[in-house]
C-alpha cells in the first residue's frame, strides 16, 4: 500500500499554536466494522436504512449513558469554553484542524446534548448553540472522535477537570450501538472473545514462539531461561499484550521479563486462555466488553492457582488493571463480596494485586535480588517516553508519581546514559505517541504521523543535544506506533524499545540471588 500524500509538520523554533486550517482532517475516518464484527460484540450490525431509526437509537443511548454515568452529565454541563485545552492536543498541534481542539471536538457532542437534554436547547436551540443530530453530524463524530487517542493530556489543563477521554468513549459507544463501529478495535475485541488475544494467536502458536525464544536465549547467554505457558501452580501469572509475542521491538521486553523471573528464582507462567493484557473495551468505554475481556484473566488465575498477577508493558492494560480490575474481575484488595473474596483468598496479600512488571522488577532491584552489568547498555543514550494511560490514569509503587519514577529508576539501574526530554512533554503532561486509544490502524496513518509531531519534536531536541539513540517506553501501542512513524521524521525505526529490553541487555543470569 502506497502511503497517503500528506505534509509532515515542520519542527518549530518555539511551540507556537499553529495557524488554523478548518476542515484539514475532515476526510480522516477509519474503516467501518462489518456486520459480522459488530454482531460478535453484541452491537447492531450496521446503520439502519431509515435515518430516523438511527437518530432515535443514538439519542436513546445518549440518554441512557447520561443516566448511568453522572460524570458524563457533569462533563457535558461544566465546560465554559475557556480554551485552556485548545493547544494541548497533539492531534490539534499536528493537524491544525480546529475541530481537533478538545473543546471543539467535544462540542460536536455537547451541541447535541443541549438540543435534546436541556430546557434552553429544547426551546431556543439557536440561542445556545444546540444542534439536531443529523447524519452529517454523526459522520463528523465518526471522523473526529476517531482522532482522539483518549490520552487525557487536555484534561490535565482543564480547570473543571473534564475527562475528555470519557466524552470520546461515550460518543464511540453511541456509534457502536447504532451500528457505526470501528473495524480496527472491534475486530480485535472479537478475536479476544474467540481466541484470547488481540492478534488471534492460538495456544500452539504461542507455545512454538516461546519455545523458539528459549532456544534463542540459550544460544545468546548459555543459560536455560524458561518461558512457561499454562504452568499449573506457578507463583506468578504474567499477562502481557499479545504484541509482545509477535512484534519487534516488543518481543525484546518479553525476553527481559523471563530473565527477571529466572534471575530472581520466582516461578511464573503465561496463560494461553488469558494471553492478552490490553483491553480495547476501554476505547468505547463499554463496561460489558471490558468485563468480558477482563474475566478471562480471572478464570486463568483461578485455574492456574497463581499467587500473584503481574501485568506486562502495556498502557491501556495497566489503566484497566489498576483502576477497574477490582470490580471487573475481582483482582484487587478490599472488597468483601464473594466474587472478590474468592480471589483474595488465593492471591498473596503481601504484594499489590495486580502489580505492574516495572513495580515487580524495581522491588527486586531494591531487595538486591537482581544484578546488572550496566556497561552492557553503554552503546545506548536513553530517554523515556511516558505512555499516557500509565502516566495520567494509574500509579505504581503505591505513591503519587511512582508511575513516573519507577520506570526511570529501572533504566538508571541498568544503564549509564539517561537523559530527559523537555519537561513540558513528559510525566503527567506527556504527549501521546499518536496511536493510542484505537488510532493505531493503517488507514489513520495521516492522523498518526501528525499526532506524533509534538513527541518527535521533543525527541529531536535530545537527539541533537545528547545523541539519544534509544527511546524507552512501556506500552505496546507506543512501540508499534513509533516503529511506524519514526521514519517519517527521519529517525531509525529501531530508536524505540522497551524498558525490559534494557533490563534484558544488562541483567546477570548467574547465581547471584
Amino acid at each position, binding site marked *: *500500500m*502506497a502511503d497517503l500524500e500528506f505534509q509532515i509538520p515542520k519542527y518549530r523554533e518555539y511551540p507556537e499554536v499553529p495557524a488554523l486550517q478548518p476542515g484539514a482532517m475532515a476526510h480522516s475516518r477509519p*474503516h467501518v466494522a462489518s456486520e459480522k464484527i459488530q454482531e460478535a460484540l453484541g452491537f447492531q450490525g450496521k446503520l439502519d436504512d431509515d435515518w430516523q431509526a438511527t437518530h432515535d437509537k443514538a439519542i436513546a443511548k445518549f440518554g441512557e449513558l447520561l443516566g448511568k454515568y453522572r460524570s458524563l452529565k457533569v462533563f457535558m454541563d461544566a465546560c465554559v469554553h475557556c480554551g485552556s485545552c485548545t493547544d494541548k492536543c497533539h492531534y490539534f498541534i499536528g493537524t491544525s484542524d480546529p475541530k481537533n481542539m478538545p473543546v471543539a471536538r467535544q462540542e460536536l457532542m455537547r451541541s447535541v446534548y443541549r438540543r435534546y437534554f436541556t430546557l434552553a436547547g429544547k426551546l431556543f436551540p439557536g440561542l445556545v448553540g444546540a444542534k439536531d443530530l443529523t447524519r452529517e453530524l454523526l459522520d463528523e463524530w465518526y471522523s473526529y472522535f476517531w482522532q482522539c487517542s483518549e490520552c487525557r493530556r487536555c484534561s490535565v489543563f482543564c480547570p473543571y477537570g473534564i475527562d475528555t477521554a470519557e466524552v470520546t468513549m461515550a460518543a464511540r459507544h453511541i456509534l457502536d450501538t447504532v451500528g457505526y463501529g470501528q*473495524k*480496527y478495535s472491534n*475486530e*480485535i475485541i472479537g*478475536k479476544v472473545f474467540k481466541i484470547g*488475544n*488481540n*492478534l*488471534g*494467536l*492460538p495456544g*500452539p*502458536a504461542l507455545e*512454538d*514462539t516461546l519455545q*523458539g*525464544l528459549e532456544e*534463542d536465549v540459550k544460544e545468546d547467554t548459555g543459560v536455560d531461561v524458561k518461558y512457561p505457558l499454562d504452568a499449573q501452580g506457578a507463583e506468578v501469572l504474567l499477562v502481557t*499484550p*499479545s*504484541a509482545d*509475542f*509477535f*512484534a*519487534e521491538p*516488543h*518481543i525484546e521486553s518479553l525476553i527481559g521479563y523471563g530473565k527477571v523471573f529466572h534471575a530472581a528464582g520466582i516461578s511464573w507462567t503465561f496463560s494461553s486462555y488469558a494471553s492478552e493484557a*490490553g483491553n480495547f473495551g476501554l476505547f468505547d468505554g463499554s463496561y460489558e466488553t471490558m468485563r468480558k475481556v477482563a474475566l478471562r484473566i480471572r478464570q486463568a488465575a483461578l485455574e492456574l492457582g497463581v499467587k500473584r498477577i503481574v501485568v506486562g508493558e*502495556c498502557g491501556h492494560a495497566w489503566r484497566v488493571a489498576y483502576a477497574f480490575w477490582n470490580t471487573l474481575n475481582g483482582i484487587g484488595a478490599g472488597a468483601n463480596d464473594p466474587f472478590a473474596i474468592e480471589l483474595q483468598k488465593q492471591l498473596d496479600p503481601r504484594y499489590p494485586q495486580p502489580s505492574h512488571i516495572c513495580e515487580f522488577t524495581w522491588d527486586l532491584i531494591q531487595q538486591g535480588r537482581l544484578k546488572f552489568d550496566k556497561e552492557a547498555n553503554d552503546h545506548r543514550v536513553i530517554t523515556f517516553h511516558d505512555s499516557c494511560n500509565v502516566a495520567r490514569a494509574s500509579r505504581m509503587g503505591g505513591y503519587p508519581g511512582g508511575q513516573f519514577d519507577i520506570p526511570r529508576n529501572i533504566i538508571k539501574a541498568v544503564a549509564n546514559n539517561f537523559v530527559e526530554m523537555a519537561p513540558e512533554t513528559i510525566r503527567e503532561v506527556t504527549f501521546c505517541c499518536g496511536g493510542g486509544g484505537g488510532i*493505531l490502524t*493503517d*488507514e489513520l496513518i495521516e492522523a498518526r504521523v501528525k499526532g506524533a509531531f509534538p513527541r518527535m519534536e521533543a525527541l529531536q531536541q535530545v537527539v541533537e543535544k545528547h545523541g539519544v539513540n534509544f527511546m524507552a517506553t512501556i506500552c*505496546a*501501542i507506543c*512501540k*508499534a506506533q513509533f516503529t*511506524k512513524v519514526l521514519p517519517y521524521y527521519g529517525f531509525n525505526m529501531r530508536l524505540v524499545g522497551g524498558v525490559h529490553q534494557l533490563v534484558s541487555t544488562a541483567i546477570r543470569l548467574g547465581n547471584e540471588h
Partner: protein
Amino acid sequence: MAFELNGKTYETDEEGYLVNLSDWNEDVAKYLAQQEGVNLTDAHWEVINFLRDYYNEFQIAPAVRVLTKAIGKKLGPEKGNSQYLYELFPYGPAKQACKIAGLPKPTGCV
C-alpha cells in the same frame, strides 16, 4: 471490494487482503505484489512460502522473530534479520508480506 484476474473475481477487504484464503494462488500473489509496488524475486518467495506453511500449521502468521530466524537458517545468517525483511517488504514484513501471501492482516498493537 474485489479485483479481477484471468477472468475470475477475487474478493478483498478494504485494505486489499483476500477475504477467502483459499482463493490464493501464485498469480494472485503476483497481482497483489504489483499493487504494492513489490517485484517478487526468489527471496520474496522464500518468505511467502514460509508464511503460508506456518499459517497452515498454526492458523496465524509467525512472529517477526520466528520468521527472521527461519529465513536466516535457510538463506544465511546475514539475511536473518528484520532489516533484510524490510528491504524485501518495505511496508513491513508482517503486514505487507502477509497480504501478498494471501493471509489475514495481523491485528493488535503491531
